[in-house]
Structure formats: C-alpha cells, structure tokens
C-alpha cells in the first residue's frame, strides 16, 4: 500500500510540475464550454435584414414591426427598388430581404391571396435556412392572429410545447456533449501519454524490475487522473449550470456515479492505448484519432445518429460517449432515474471491463 501511495504521489508531482498538463487538464474544459456555449450556437440574434416594401400600407408596416420586434432581427435599411438587393447582399451585412408586393392589404382580402418574398443570403446555408424559417414563422403567426380576429368560425391551432428544453437552447445539447468529449479525451490522453513517457525515458524498465505489481502500476497511473477528471466533470456541470443555466433535474449522485464510471472507462482505454504505443507521440496521436474525431462525429453530440447511414450507426454504437451522452441528458434534463438508463450504464460498465481485461492481458511484466 505504501508503495502504491508513493507511486500515486509521484504521479501528482508529474502533473503539478508540468504547466502544459495543467493547462490541458483545466484550461481546455473551460475554454471548450465557453466556446461551444457562446460561439457555436444555432440560435439567431441581431440578424440584419432589409425591407423592400412596394405597398407601404398598414398591413405591411404591421408585419415589418412584428418581425423587428421579435428580437432576432435588426432593420439595416429599407430599399426602394429590387435593383438594390444585389448590392446589399454583396456588402454582406444584410442576410435577408423581405419583399412586399404592391397592393398588399387589398389583395389580402381576395383570392388567391398574396405572396411575400423572402430573399436570403445563402452563402451561409445554415443561417439562411434559420433566418427564413424564423421570418416565415413570425409572418404566419401574425396572419393567424389577424384571421382569427375577423371571420373564420372553425380553426385548428397547433399548440407547440418543447419538453425538457422549452426554449430549444443549444447549450443543453453541448454541455453533455462536451462533458463526454473532454472526459474521454483527457482521461485517455493523459494516462496513455504518461505511461508512454515512462517507456520513453527508460523509467519503465526500473518500474518493471521493482517489486511493484502490474496492477499497482496501472492503478497508480489511473488514480490521480481519476481524481482530476472528477473535478473536471463537476466543474463542467457547474459552469453549464451557473453560466448557461443548464439544469440538473435528476439525481446529482447518480449523475456523478455515471460520470465516474465513464471516466473509469476512458482511463482503461488510455491504459490500453499505452500498451500499444511506444512513444508519447504515438500515444497522443492514437488517443486523439481514436477518441476525439469519432467522439465528435459519431457520438450524436453534433450530428443526430438517426440521420446517419446504417453502417455509421452501428459504428457509433461502439463509441462510449454515445451512451454516456444519452445517460447524462436523461438525468440532467429529464430527471430520469437509473431505471430508465440501466441499459446504457450496463453497456458502459461492460466496455470498461473489456478494456480493463485487455489491458491486463497486454500489460507485460517484461519489456516485450
């Protein structure tokens, strides 16, 4: 036991002496959360639009007012002719032009009704899509209200309510995703690199001939990173909660327990990688490429799994973060208990066991 503690202490010294390690451990999670939370967002804010109003009647003014008061749009300018549109888009500031045809208010009363033209700058396809959707929603909404005020006796209203994320905030998705990504990355990367470093510096030779058992070496490597990763997990949840208002509806204990299980899984992956890699660089490369890209692309963190081709869907089932994201979303947003997520938890536990066994099998008491 004393040997083991001595080993753990040494690992902590390594971590605290190396400012790069500290930066990766604590700087990256915070930076990532901030980046994803603020910069990479699907929500619209202050989009500049222009209006080309050929009618200039009461209805078109009303609609324009509605659009501008939604908070999503800012009126950049009003245009006088269609010819100006091109120029406006070229400048690049204006993302959308709303065009009202002449005689809007009168034609509205008659069949076949009226058209409003929405012209968007689709050089950024995603934004264009969003902008157009938002604008048409506002217009629809206005027309609905107006019609219901006047005549029609029967109408169907679709009452929409978004459960678990009523305002459809992107952060709700990103916080679990980032947690899944960062924990797996840091845990796997750090352990594999630190074991590879022992090999590179030749200290592994002495550790192997020492009376330390393989299990003591492995657990000694895992323990410090486990502790630090738990701190990381907690700080990510706290940041998400305090800065972005992502709630933790379910049991905090369960959330932590699952996170610890997931961290443990990531650590065993790291150890497994280190049994394959001879140098720090190889270990880093393998961790990044095996863990990072698939985690981002295939875990359902950014791209929905349902939309992937079948083969990639099967592949994504092999990604630990995929299951972890399901579980923590379920706990954080839906307040689900273990009853609802036992399957995913079991999968994570199974994966940990698999990697642990594989690492022990591959870990040699000799150099080869």
């Amino acid at each position: 036991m004393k040997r083991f503690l001595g080993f753990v202490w040494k690992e902590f010294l390594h971590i605290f002496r190396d400012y790069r390690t500290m930066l990766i451990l604590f700087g990256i999670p915070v930076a990532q959360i901030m980046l994803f939370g603020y910069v990479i967002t699907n929500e619209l804010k202050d989009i500049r639009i222009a209006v080309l109003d050929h009618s200039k009647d009461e209805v078109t003014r009303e609609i324009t007012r509605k659009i501008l008061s939604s908070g999503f749009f800012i009126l950049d300018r009003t245009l006088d002719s269609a010819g100006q549109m091109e120029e406006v888009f070229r400048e690049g500031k204006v993302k959308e032009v709303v065009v009202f045809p002449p005689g809007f208010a009168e034609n509205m009363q008659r069949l076949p009704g009226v058209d409003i033209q929405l012209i968007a700058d689709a050089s950024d396809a995603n934004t264009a899509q969003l902008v157009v959707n938002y604008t048409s929603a506002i217009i629809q909404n206005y027309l609905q209200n107006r019609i219901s005020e006047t005549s029609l006796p029967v109408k169907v209203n679709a009452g929409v309510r978004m459960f678990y994320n009523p305002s459809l905030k992107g952060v709700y998705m990103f916080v679990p995703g980032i947690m899944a990504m960062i924990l797996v990355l840091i845990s796997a990367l750090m352990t594999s690199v630190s074991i590879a470093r022992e090999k590179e510096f030749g200290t592994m030779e002495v550790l192997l001939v020492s009376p330390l058992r393989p299990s003591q070496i492995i657990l000694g490597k895992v323990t410090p990173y486990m502790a630090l990763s738990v701190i990381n997990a907690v700080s990510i949840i706290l940041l998400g909660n305090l800065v972005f208002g992502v709630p933790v509806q379910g049991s905090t204990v369960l959330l932590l327990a699952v996170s610890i299980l997931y961290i443990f899984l990531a650590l065993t992956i790291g150890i497994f990688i280190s049994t394959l890699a001879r140098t720090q660089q190889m270990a880093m490369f393998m961790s990044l490429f095996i863990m990072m890209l698939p985690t981002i692309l295939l875990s359902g963190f950014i791209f929905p799994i349902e939309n992937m081709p079948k083969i990639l869907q099967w592949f994504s089932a092999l990604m630990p973060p995929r299951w972890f994201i399901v579980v923590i979303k379920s706990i954080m947003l839906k307040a689900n208990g273990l009853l609802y997520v036992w399957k995913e938890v079991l999968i994570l536990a199974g994966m940990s066991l698999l990697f642990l066994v594989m690492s022990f099998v591959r870990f040699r008491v000799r150099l080869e």
Partner: protein
Amino acid sequence: MEFLEVIRVSRSFGPVNALKEVSFSVNRGELFGLIGPDGAGKTTLFRIIASLFLPDEGKILVKGYNVVKDYKQVRRITGYMPGRFSLYHDLTVEENLSFYATVFGTTLKDSAAYIHRVYSPLKPFRKRLAGKLSGGMKQKLALSCALIHRPEFLLLDEPTTGVDAVSRKEFWEMLEELRNMGVTILVSTPYMDEAGQCDRVALIDHGKLLQTGSPAEIVHNFSAKLYAIRGRNLYALLGRLRMSPEVKYAFMFGREIHLVFYRVPGRPARWLENLSGSPQGTFSIEPLDPGMEDCFVELMGENHPVDGKENI
C-alpha cells in the same frame, strides 16, 4: 563460486541475431566488465539478465535463480541501472531517490549509509530537478537509485556513456568500493580503456563473445607483433598501408597508426620509407606492447574476416 552463469544464450529480433550462443560466468564479489562497441548486443544481454527480455535459447542463473522462471527472486536481489539513466527529469534529486526507495520497499534513511559514498556528492543539489543535472551527477543519482534496496548484484548498462572523464574516473572508484563491500557487479562499456578497471572482462561484438579473462590475460594472449607509426599526415599513409600485401591490418589509434604484419619485413623502417616514398625521418615505426583496444581489434578481425580490415 559462480554468482552469475550465462549459458549459451541466443536472442534474435526478426532477422537480426543480437546474441549468438553467449556463455560466461561471473564470480561472487567480482567486478566484471562486458566490453564491446555500440550494437554489439550488450544492452540486449543486460535486459535478459534483468529478466526484461526472454532469451530464445540458453539459460541464465543469478545466484541459482533462473531469470525466466524465478524472475521475481532475481529482481529482488538485483540493482539494475539501464543505459539511459532512468530518472524522472521533472522530479528533484531527493524525490527520485525517495520514490525508488518507496517502490522498492525501503526508505532513504534505512539505505543512507549504504548509498552514502555515491550519494554524498549529490547532497548539495538534492532540491534540484534531475533533468537539470550534469551527466556525471545524473549517473551518480541513477546509481544511487539502483543501490537503494541494497542489492547483492549490480547490473550497470553503459553507466559511463556520455559522462565526462573526471566523473568516469570517480565512478570506477565507487564501483571498486562497492565491489569491496561484497557486491557482485556486471558493468558494460564501449570504452576499451575502462577494461583495466575490471577484475575480468568479456569482449563482445556482433552478438558473439570473443574472449573472456582478466585484462592482463587478454593482453597476454595477443598473438601478433604490433607496431606503432608516428608522424605527420598519417591519414594518407593509412590508405597506402592498407593496400600493401604485407599488412594484415592497420588502424588509427589517437595520433598514431597501429599496424600488424602478415610477415614482419627485415627492416621495418626501410620498408616504410619505400612504401610511403617519403624521406627518412618523416615517419617513425616502433614495436609496441598491445593494449586492450589492440586485442579487441585483432579479435574483431577474426570474428569478421571480410569486413574486419575495412572497418577498423
């Protein structure tokens, strides 16, 4: 009494035969040197003795323990110092020592007397990071670490490589003292001049053991007559010497050429004048008592008759 027995050990890595049927033994309390150039197979052999590699064939016994089957016992009595001083560069001198002490189940205090001779020069630097030490100090620290569990058997892989001359001399003095304390020491080195410090040496090249014996014995066994040539512009002369049919081999040794004839000419000085085409007195040639390096070159030539001449 034989403490270490290496019996017909072979080991290959893919197509490379790193060790070919190597056999020798080290007596208890002996300072034994394994001497050979880089790539001779020294490190491979040491790792097999330290139970870090497995031999393809053959057997090694350390104090009667088989290094393959009884590797745990072997590891307990062995202090192993790998070729690259296996230190943690981001830990201080003291932290390195106490880490190895804890891992080997002892404490710095318990072993203080034992390692005192090696460690005391380092004491003023005990708060310094190991990575910031000079080569000589790293070497002493690594030796202290290898000694921390008071082993009966020290296995030192090229401990003097990359270390300045003064530190090397000190290091050999320390080894001698440890030997006098009863520790059996097997040390490898690429430096022939260090052979004289050992009780016995084994010369190794290309995975084959060339000769074993005390330094005096090895020099005594040198069969041929050796000549030294001194003078200016020796490199040009060396080429001519090697082309000459009378010359078995010739090589640069510091600022002279060492030379062995197939058949010694009647008047070597005259022969040399003819060969070089230079006036008398440009070069001098005299018989010489062979040193360890001359023996090694001779033995290496026998080991590789084809490339021996060119590579020297």
